[in-house]
């Protein structure tokens, strides 16, 4: 196959697999059937598109092909008195046809994946696998667990959805608010996985960011009265606004302080600031709204040197009170370093237990470097290098070690 065609299949897979799995899951009422059929359709695509070329609507082609594959398989199995296959066929035969119904199929599938009867670990893993189309290896790396552990987690979660009868729908209104926080956590992680891919040559996998943003917008349209839903959207919009300035043309990483701020996406920043103002007006703060506000303070400064670090530290104090996690404490230490100096920040960082997290070592390394403790800084940079597979991040860290 020509490289261009192969690339087209891979691109379509990443862009369309979530949508296709969600649509098939609605049509057949079963996630395993949906996932297998979509995978088979992509296998067929790699062969067929070599001869016939890439179709005009590759996503639609995948859904149609996957639907035929699932129907064929289920008809064979149903004739052998397989009750699950019979049930799935019955489901597919009921009046649910159509390429995509409102509400969005993916939103429906996200609420299934984020059902409170599943552990949060399972919720996030399922959504990244089924909605974002990530490979199990990539998800395992994002969660710092072995691949086999992640594979088992996914299998168990899918079994529970099927056997416990976790429904495939967007929750109705009275229960909707309690079902939102896990969905927000998952959408945030999907965006982040795109923003800083855990492995590979492409620092920013824009389609995952776009997916996270699209889902956040959809949630905001569905639940405009929820401040944290708007907060998440504001946070993602403002984070995404940095994207054009975040990497150089060779793909290497640019720190926030060194970014060319004229490259920031002005329209996204304006939209984000407007959302933050709406959130502030409601006065029901939450972790996403506070993180969005932090970002708004950063994007208010025309130069890095004009950043209002006092305000940033005050917001981090609020955030740490609401979400007392070691990662928030680590991020807060960066603001502490600006306001009170690197020595005080290092004291805070050294109290955290985040040995598996590369940004813990990278933050420590930077503080040690600023304190002139070069050998310790080099060791910390190497510890960070051991814990990230992202090429752009590795290049950045290697550059820092050389500059010491």
């Amino acid at each position: 196959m020509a490289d261009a065609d192969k690339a087209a299949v891979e691109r379509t897979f990443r862009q369309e697999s979530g949508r296709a799995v969600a649509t098939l899951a609605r049509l057949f009422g079963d996630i395993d059937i949906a996932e297998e059929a979509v995978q088979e359709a992509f296998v067929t695509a790699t062969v067929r598109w070599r001869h016939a070329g890439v179709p005009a609507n590759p996503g639609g082609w995948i859904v149609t092909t996957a639907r035929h594959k699932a129907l064929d398989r289920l008809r064979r199995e149903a004739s052998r008195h397989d009750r699950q296959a019979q049930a799935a066929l019955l489901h597919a035969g009921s009046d649910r046809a159509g390429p995509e119904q409102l509400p969005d199929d993916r939103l429906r599938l996200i609420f299934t994946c984020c059902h409170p009867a599943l552990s949060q670990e399972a919720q996030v893993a399922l959504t990244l696998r089924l909605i974002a189309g990530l490979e199990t290896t990539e998800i395992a790396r994002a969660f710092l667990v072995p691949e086999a552990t992640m594979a088992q987690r996914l299998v168990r979660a899918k079994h529970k959805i099927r056997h416990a009868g976790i429904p495939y729908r967007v929750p109705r209104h009275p229960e909707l608010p309690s079902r939102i926080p896990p969905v927000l956590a998952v959408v945030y992680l999907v965006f982040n996985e795109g923003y800083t891919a855990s492995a590979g040559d492409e620092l920013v996998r824009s389609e995952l960011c776009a997916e996270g943003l699209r889902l956040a917008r959809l949630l905001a349209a569905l639940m405009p009265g929820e401040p944290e839903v708007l907060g998440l959207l504001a946070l993602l919009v403002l984070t995404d606004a940095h994207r054009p300035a975040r990497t150089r043309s060779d793909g290497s990483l640019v720190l926030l302080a060194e970014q060319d701020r004229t490259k920031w996406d002005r329209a996204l920043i304006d939209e984000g600031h407007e959302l933050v103002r709406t959130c502030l007006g409601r006065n029901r703060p939450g972790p996403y709204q506070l993180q969005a506000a932090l970002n708004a303070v950063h994007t208010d400064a025309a130069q890095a040197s004009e950043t209002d670090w006092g305000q940033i530290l005050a917001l981090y104090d609020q955030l740490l009170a609401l979400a007392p996690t070691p990662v928030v404490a680590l991020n807060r230490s960066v603001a502490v370093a600006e306001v009170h100096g690197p020595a005080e920040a290092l004291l805070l960082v050294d109290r955290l237990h985040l040995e598996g997290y590369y940004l813990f070592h990278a933050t420590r390394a930077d503080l040690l470097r600023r304190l002139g403790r070069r050998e310790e800084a080099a060791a910390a940079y190497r510890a960070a290098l051991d814990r990230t597979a992202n090429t752009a991040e590795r290049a950045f860290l290697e550059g820092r070690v050389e500059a010491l």
Partner: protein
Amino acid sequence: MKQYLLAVHMVEGEAQPSPEEMQQAYKQVDAFNTELQSAGAWVFAGGLHPPATATVVRLRDGKAVTTDGPFAETKEQLGGFWIINAADLDSALELAAKGSAACGAPVEVRPFQEAPE
């Protein structure tokens, strides 16, 4: 339609409810049972005597060997159960919440393997 077991879990050694509280719980469970029946969700239900009344039977070399129970040496033991019909897990969880409120104990929801014909 699926079937679910709603298992009521009792913790041994916890403070026993007063006779009045027991009476109140019985009344509440009765009302809940009636609700299950009128909603068509009822399959079967029952309360169990304490685990000290249990006997375990296992097959050893083809022979049934009987020992004093309970089987699991834990503080948490099955105290009673409902078997219900529900459309999906959300409906089952909604009923389990009502059952838990009625009997004043945690309820574990487990799906049955076969969907009823």
